[in-house]
């Protein structure tokens, strides 16, 4: 079950403090990287919620991010909504779309679940790619950033936007953590371990999975809104399955089913991408090698590795022995 161990809380505090400090110290290029990390971090939090804790490995989270980005941009540009209502609408819409996807895919498991989510993702990608409403291959531009001038904040400023992006990551994390500590989250973890038994105990499995998928979809939609606001231009590439695949790589790299690990994974991935791509255009190959090393080491990601070592050092005797010692 998900808990905030001292190690996790410490790691979170370090990430939060480090990100904020960097946001106030970095130049334009660093702030752009920070915003990129934040977008990926929200997406991987969304993915870890269902894949890491619920065992629902999704290849449509890129598409959900894209849906969020397009819904936000269309709501703002075509329907004339201001940024905040457009964001709320986009997140709600993505969540509403994710629920039936989760409900349908909940009937399958393992590789079939992955393929079903991939099919949904590709359907969304094709639809957006073909549709004139969404600008087809050309995409859409002009996604607005929220107007916070009433509180003296100008989000067109890169530094302010980076801080705003970090706050959205914190919001996404809090939503995911609260979900995992709720009845639904407890059931989600139970489903990962033994779906048959949970059904026999009286849980409506498809509904639990679909609800978790809807919450995850909402977070992916939020990542999409942020992505649209960041570049103020969106294209069908956002919905590509490669975005989902990349998010999965980041979750595995950071530590599947830890919620904190994927945050580290997002930082590592984006930094590695930019550092290595400055040296060679074959940066994907290097990241691939690192991922293979992580998988082959059987460590549950970078954070999972640290956590396992930490737990081994601090573990107390369990069961009767523990009771006797107490």
């Amino acid at each position, binding site marked *: *079950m998900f808990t905030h161990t001292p190690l996790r809380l410490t790691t979170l505090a370090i990430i939060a403090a480090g990100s904020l400090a960097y946001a106030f110290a970095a130049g334009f290029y660093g702030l752009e990287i920070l915003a990129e990390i934040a977008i990926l971090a929200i997406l991987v939090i969304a993915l870890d919620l269902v894949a890491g804790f619920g065992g629902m490995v999704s290849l449509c989270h890129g598409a959900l991010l894209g849906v969020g980005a397009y819904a936000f941009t269309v709501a703002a540009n075509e329907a004339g909504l201001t940024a905040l209502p457009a964001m709320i609408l986009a997140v709600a819409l993505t969540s509403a779309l994710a629920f039936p996807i989760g409900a349908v895919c909940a009937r399958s498991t393992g590789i079939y679940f992955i393929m079903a989510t991939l099919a949904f993702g590709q359907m969304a990608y094709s639809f957006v790619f073909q549709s004139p409403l969404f600008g087809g291959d050309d995409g859409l531009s002009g996604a607005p950033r929220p107007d916070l001038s009433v509180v003296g904040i100008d989000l067109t400023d890169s530094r302010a936007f980076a801080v705003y992006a970090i706050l959205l990551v914190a919001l996404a994390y809090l939503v995911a953590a*609260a*979900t995992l*500590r*709720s*009845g*639904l989250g*407890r*059931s989600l*973890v*139970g489903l990962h*371990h*033994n779906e*048959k*038994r*949970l*059904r*026999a*105990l*009286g*849980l*409506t*499995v498809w*509904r*639990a999975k679909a*609800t978790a998928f809807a919450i995850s979809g909402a977070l992916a939609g939020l990542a999409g809104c942020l992505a649209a606001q960041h570049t103020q231009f969106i294209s069908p590439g956002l919905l590509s399955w490669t975005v989902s695949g990349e998010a999965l790589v980041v979750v595995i790299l950071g530590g599947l089913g830890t919620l904190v690990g994927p945050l580290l994974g997002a930082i590592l991935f984006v930094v590695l991408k930019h550092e290595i791509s400055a040296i060679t255009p074959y940066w994907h190959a290097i990241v691939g090698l690192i991922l293979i090393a992580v998988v082959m080491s059987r460590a549950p990601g970078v954070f999972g590795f640290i956590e396992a070592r930490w737990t081994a050092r601090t573990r107390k005797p*369990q*069961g*009767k022995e*523990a*009771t006797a010692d107490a």
Partner: protein
Amino acid sequence: MLETRNLTKSFGPIQVTRGVSLKLEKGERRVILGPNGAGKTTLFNQLVGEITPNSGTIHLDGADVTGLRVAERARRGLSRSYQKNTLFDGLTIRENLGLAAAVALGKGQGLWSDPLQSVEVRETVREVAAQVDLAPYLDARVDAVSYGIRRQLEVGIALATGPKVILMDEPTSGVGPEMSKGFHRLLKALPRDLTILIIEHDMDLAFDVADTITVLNYGEVVFDGLPEAARGSQLLKDIYLGAWEDA
């Protein structure tokens, strides 16, 4: 409380249960005996809805539940333990029991609070842990405890749902004599208004706890009566010694 009428199930040409009719009154403890392959577990699977019968009906507390799904039957008070441990392996014993109690209390899909911290769930966990003698192991992970403790937990999870009827599929399967005695005590200590149907090969336990005994052979009910009658039954001895097949 639980009744089946002419329950029949075939897998291809093989009839696994043949017109099984049982009637359990509230609080009755019935043991199902029968050799391997007699259709006992298949009968359980039909009762809880994991397998759909070809014909016949199942009634729980007066209502026909034959068409209901597994989860819906569970919500109506039908709980089971499995012959092969079916636990939440990566979790602690406390979390296993808590999850079962939370789902049974309708807190399995809530969004606003942690059911494992609720008073009702914690109280259920404490009570069930005491019933199945797991209190000292509550914070141990399931994959770190012995097989015998896992068998106790298997029954504990079924009890944590607060069932009206509990089906136990060979609860003492694979455990030693001492732990088997523990199961005798556990079964005898359960509330008298709980209806219990047990598949069991341990004859001592069967005759010790049973109000009534049903014997299945080749999917058919061949004996249905009191333990005293079963104890002296030549038919039962023949089935277990194989003479039935020769007849």
